[in-house]
C-alpha cells in the first residue's frame, strides 16, 4: 500500500512539475514571440512535423538515455556524479583517438575498441571520485564536478592543439573513417543505430539492479548505507562501482555521439547532455526503466524549443532559459523529496520518502 502511494506521489509530483514547465514555456512564448499562435503551435507540434525533427529528437533521446541512465545508476546507490560533461567528453575523445590513430581496425573491431576505450575513459574519471571518497572521505559530489571541469580544459586543449584537424574551420579533431560511422536513419537527421545501444543499456542495468546479487546489494547500500554496512556488505565497493558504471555509461554517450552524429570530437559538443542527464534521472526517480519516458520528455522539450526558435520568432537565449527552468523546477522538486537524505535544506515534508 505504502509502495503504491509512494509511486503515485512521485508520478503526481513529476506531472505537476512538467505541467508547470509547459505553462512557463507558454508564458515565455506569449511574452517574447511576435507571432504568438505560430510559436505555440510550433513549440508543441514542431517536433513531430517532419522526419528531420523526429530523427533529431530521437537522436537527442539516445544521448539522454545514456546520460540519464548513468546518473540513475549513481542515484540508486545514493552517490552523486556531477561530472557528466567531462566524462562524456573524455569518452568521445578516447573513441576518436582510437578510431583516428589506431591503424588496422575493421568496422567491428573499431566499434568494440572505441566503445571500450570510451567506457574506460568515462569510468576511470568517475572512479577516481569513488576512490577519493573511500580513501579520504572527499565528497564525490564536489570531486566529480571539479575533476570534470579540469578534464574539459585538457580535452579542449587536445582538440585545439595536437588533435586539431588543420583542414577544418571548426574546432574539431579529424573525422573518423566512414567504415566506423554508425548506421544513420531518417537522413539527414542525427538519428543513428546507437539508439538500440541505449535501449540495450537500459535493459542491462535493469537486469543488474533487480536480478543480480550485486544489484541487490547496491540497492541496499543506496537505501541505507549504515544498515548495509552492519549487514556485512562491502559498502566502499558500492561507492566506487556505481560511479565507475555511471562514468562508463557517460563515456558511451560520448562515443555514440562521435560514431553516430559528429564523426569527430567537436569542441564543446557535450553541452546540454551532461546536465540534462541529471534532470532525466531526477524525473525517472531512480527507476532505470523510467529513464526511457523521462529522456523522451526531455528530448521533446529540447526539440520543441529548437523548432520554435527556428520557425517562429523565438530568441536563441530563450530556448536555453526554458531548459534552465525545467532543470530548476525538477531539481527543486527532488530537493524537497529527498530533503532528509541529501541537502536537508528544507524541513521534512509530510509523505516524504520513508526508507
Amino acid at each position, binding site marked *: 500500500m505504502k509502495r503504491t502511494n509512494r509511486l503515485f506521489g512521485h508520478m503526481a509530483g513529476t506531472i505537476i512539475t512538467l505541467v508547470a514547465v509547459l505553462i512557463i514555456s507558454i508564458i515565455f512564448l506569449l511574452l517574447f514571440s511576435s507571432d504568438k499562435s505560430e510559436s505555440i503551435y510550433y513549440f508543441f507540434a514542431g517536433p513531430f512535423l517532419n522526419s528531420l525533427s523526429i530523427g533529431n529528437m530521437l537522436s537527442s533521446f539516445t544521448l539522454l538515455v545514456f546520460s540519464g541512465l548513468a546518473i540513475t545508476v549513481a542515484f540508486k546507490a545514493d552517490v552523486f556524479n556531477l561530472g557528466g560533461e567531462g566524462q562524456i567528453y573524455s569518452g568521445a575523445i578516447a573513441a576518436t583517438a582510437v578510431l583516428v590513430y589506431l591503424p588496422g581496425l575493421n568496422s567491428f573491431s573499431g566499434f568494440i575498441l572505441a566503445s571500450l576505450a570510451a567506457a574506460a575513459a568515462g569510468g576511470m574519471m568517475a572512479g577516481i571520485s569513488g576512490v577519493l571518497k573511500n580513501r579520504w572521505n572527499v565528497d564525490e559530489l564536489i570531486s566529480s564536478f571539479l575533476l570534470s571541469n579540469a578534464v574539459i580544459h585538457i580535452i579542449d586543449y587536445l582538440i585545439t592543439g595536437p588533435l586539431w584537424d588543420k583542414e577544418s574551420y571548426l574546432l574539431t579533431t579529424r573525422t573518423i573513417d566512414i567504415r566506423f560511422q554508425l548506421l544513420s536513419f531518417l537522413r539527414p537527421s542525427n538519428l543513428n543505430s546507437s539508439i538500440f545501444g541505449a535501449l540495450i543499456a537500459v535493459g542491462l542495468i535493469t537486469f543488474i539492479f533487480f536480478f543480480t546479487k550485486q544489484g541487490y546489494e547496491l540497492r541496499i547500500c543506496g537505501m541505507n548505507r549504515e544498515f548495509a554496512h552492519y549487514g556485512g556488505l562491502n559498502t566502499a565497493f558500492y561507492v566506487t562501482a556505481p560511479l565507475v558504471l555511471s562514468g562508463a555509461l557517460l563515456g558511451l554517450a560520448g562515443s555514440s555521439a562521435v560514431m553516430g552524429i559528429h564523426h569527430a570530437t567537436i*569542441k564543446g*559538443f557535450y553541452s546540454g547532455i551532461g546536465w540534462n542527464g541529471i534532470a532525466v534521472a531526477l524525473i525517472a526517480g531512480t527507476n532505470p526503466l523510467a529513464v526511457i519516458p523521462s529522456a523522451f520528455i526531455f528530448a521533446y522539450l529540447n526539440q520543441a524549443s529548437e523548432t520554435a526558435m527556428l520557425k517562429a*520568432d523565438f530568441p536563441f537565449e530563450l530556448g536555453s532559459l526554458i531548459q534552465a527552468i525545467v532543470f530548476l523546477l525538477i531539481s527543486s522538486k527532488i530537493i524537497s523529496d529527498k530533503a532528509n537524505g541529501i541537502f536537508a535544506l528544507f524541513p521534512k515534508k509530510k509523505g516524504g520518502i520513508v526508507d
Partner: protein
Amino acid sequence: MIIKTKKLKIMSSALLILMILSIAGCSKEEISEKDKPFSIAVFVPGVLAGSPTYEMMDQGVRKAAVRNGASVKTIEGGFNQAQWAEQVTALAAEKSYDLIVTSNPSMPELCREIQKYYPEQDFINLEGSGIKDDQVSTFFFNHKELAFLLGNFAGFLAESYKGDENKPMKVGLIAGQEYPEMNNYIKPGFEMGFKNVNSDIELDFRIIGNWYDASKASELASDMYANGADIILTIAGGANQGVLTAAKNAQKYVLWYDSNGYAIEQGVVVGSGVIREDKAAEEMVSKAIEGTLKRGTSISAGVSEGYVDFIDDDPNYMKFVPITVREKMDKLLDQMRTGKIKLPVDN
C-alpha cells in the same frame, strides 16, 4: 495524504486538458504560393550581439530585403559549433526559405552537405571560398590585401617609434585560433606588409586557442609588449578586449581587423581595417531576389573592388597617428585602391 494526492491529480488533469485545448485552438494558416514574398533566412553561426561582422551581414541582407519586398528571419546558432549543421539542416528542411544566407568560412562545407538532401535550397556564404562546380554561392574577401595594408601600417609605426637602441623591431599578431584563412592569407599578408617597410622587423605570433578568453589574451599581449612589440593586430573575437587592456596598461597600441575599432579605445586602437560584409550581403542578396544570381557564383574581392579597406578617415586616426605615418599610408592606400597593387589569392 490520499485526499491530498487525489486533489493534485484532479488539478493536474485539469491543467493538462486546458493545455491540450489551447494547442488545438491554434492552427496554422497556409499562405498560397503565389502571394508569398521572397523569403530569406540569415543564419548567424554565433550570436549577433557583440559581433560586428555578423551584424553587418544581417543589416546588408535586411537592406536588400526592404528594397525588394522580401522577408527576412535571422536565426542565431549560438556558440556550440556541433549544432550548426543540425540547425541549418532544419532551416533547409522547412523548404519555406528561398535563400539561406550565412557567414563563416566553415559554413560552405556544411551547406554543400545539406544541399545533397535539399537540392532546391539556395545558399549564399559570405566569408567562404567556392569549389569547382559549386552549387553554393560564395563571397570571398581578400584577407591577404587587408592584412597587407595593416602590416604596412604596423611597419610604418614600428619604424617611427624605434628608439636608437639596437633591439630588434617587432610587431605582434594575436589570433583566436589557427584556421586556413589565418595561416594562408592573414599571417603571410601581414608579414609581407611590414617586411615591405623594413625587412628587419620580426613577427611575434600567438594563438589564444578560443575566441572568448580575454584574460589569456591579456596575458599573451602583455608578454608580447614586454618583449618588444609596440603594436599588435588582434583577431580574437571577444578576447580582443584582453589585448586592449594589456595595451592600455603597457601604453602600447592595437590594430583592429574587420570593423571600425577606433572608438572602442581612443588612442590605443590606432589603425583599423574593415570588411564590408554589409555591402557584399546587400548586393548578392539583391541579385538573388531579382533572380540574376547564378547558383554557385563565387566572388573574390579585395581593396580595389571596395570590399575590404583600411579606415583612414576616422577622426581618431587623424588625431593619434603621426602625420609622417599617415602620409606613407595615404600613398600605399592610393595604390591599392586604384588597383596598382593587387595581391590575388587562389581560392
